[in-house]
């Protein structure tokens, strides 16, 4: 990642920008919306898998393995939504900086900027809904439903809205820069390299987040068993102290 960052300062400028010498933030801006879109779609897919489990076995009365499977899909869904939200924020931050340098205003109501702000709001609404349900089963089901319901509008905002003829005529934002050859040569390779490295980092972070979630779930499950045995059982099931094994 460090080598790629250093290299990115030495590649020749891309002449298609308004101020080519000041457009290097594009190299870090470009992977963010790509990954945000992919993570949003993957989050919706994981939510779909939760519902497949719900249709087979009702959540509360399901077998242990079904319950665990559902928890895993919910964790994958929330991990991708969290990372997607992070990349959305990074897209906005780098985009605003790019806008100030290239177009002369921090916020110029460009259709791309505006549509991404709406996607950011969709992500925020997903988390608002998640926080509103204290019960884990309902939280998984209802936030998953919202994630599925938002996929069509989000895809519309990403892919259709900026390409509508009238909207496109109003936008300063470059579209299909690499595919149409506006960015080529070493600059294009630097973009692809940073995109690849960021994707690898995202996969690593995603796996870590899911693993942490599963460990939390396992800990909670063990604690529940202790409660059933009458060991370490407080009167309420809402806040339970967790007794960790002592190191040898």
């Amino acid at each position, binding site marked *: 990642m460090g080598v790629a960052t250093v290299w990115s300062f030495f590649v020749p400028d891309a002449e298609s920008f308004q101020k080519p010498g000041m457009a290097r933030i594009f190299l870090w801006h470009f992977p963010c919306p790509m990954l945000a879109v992919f993570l949003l779609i993957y989050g919706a897919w994981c939510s779909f898998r939760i519902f497949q489990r*719900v249709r087979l076995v009702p959540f509360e009365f399901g077998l242990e393995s079904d319950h665990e499977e559902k928890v895993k899909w919910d964790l994958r869904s929330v991990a991708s939504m969290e990372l997607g939200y992070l990349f959305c924020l990074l897209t906005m931050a780098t985009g605003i900086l790019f806008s100030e340098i290239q177009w002369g205003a921090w916020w110029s109501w460009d259709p791309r900027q505006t549509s991404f702000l*709406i996607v950011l709001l969709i992500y925020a609404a*997903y988390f*608002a809904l998640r926080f*509103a349900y204290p019960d884990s089963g*309902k939280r998984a089901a*209802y936030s998953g439903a919202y994630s599925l*319901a938002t996929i069509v509008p989000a895809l519309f905002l990403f892919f259709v809205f900026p390409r509508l*003829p009238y909207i496109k005529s109003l936008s300063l934002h470059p579209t299909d820069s690499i595919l149409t050859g506006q960015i080529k040569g070493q600059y294009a390779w630097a973009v692809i390299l940073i995109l690849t490295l960021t994707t690898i980092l995202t996969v690593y972070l995603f796996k870590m987040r899911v693993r942490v979630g599963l460990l939390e779930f396992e800990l909670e499950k063990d604690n529940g068993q202790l409660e059933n045995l009458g060991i370490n059982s407080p009167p309420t099931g809402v806040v339970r102290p967790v007794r960790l094994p002592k190191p040898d």
Partner: protein
Amino acid sequence: MNSNWRREVEAVFRKEWQTEMRSQSGLVTGLLFSVVTVYAISFASLNASMTSTVVSGMLWVALLFSTSASLPRTFLAEEELGTADLLRLTGRPHAIFWGKSLFNCFQSVITGTILSTLYLGFTGKAIAVPWLFAVSLVAGCLSLAGAVTLCGAIASQASNRAVLSAAIAVPLLLPLVSLGVSAVRVSLGLHVKHEDVGTLADGIGAAIGLVGYAGATLATGPWIFAAVWKS
């Protein structure tokens, strides 16, 4: 259509109708909101000449907030009155969603028609392409009803359900508003001098988008609702 299924949808629609006629809260809230919004906009823009883009933007914002304030009540009221569990036991999820959506569509079209008539009357804006305006308004109202009904169902069991349902519905409906503004702007400002609203083809494209949005919302809504209704 299966006759049992149709009877269930009709029963849910009739139940909603009777509940509304008894309390009249949804329609009154929607209409009151519309009148107040129209009055506020007209008052704020006194003597100012408003372009077609501004008029269509204001109209859709008024429609968005009026529907997101009144329509989620169909599900929220069930939880507040404690009748949701009975409904879960007696009806099939798809029929419940369709019954409530149809009622909300009906309510939304009425509110939209009254709001737009009042609004255009107050602003004195003429409609250049009436059929495009009508198609956009009806398709927009159907989309609003489908999406807001689903958001009401999703937020119905949360603690802060009334605020949450509107908060989660608005981001979902913003793409719809952008399409609605594009279509209505053309229907109001086509051939008007000194106004660049795009071509008739742009307006038709946006109206087709609205119809597609309504279709997508009403087609996927029951499926998503069925997955969460009994969880």
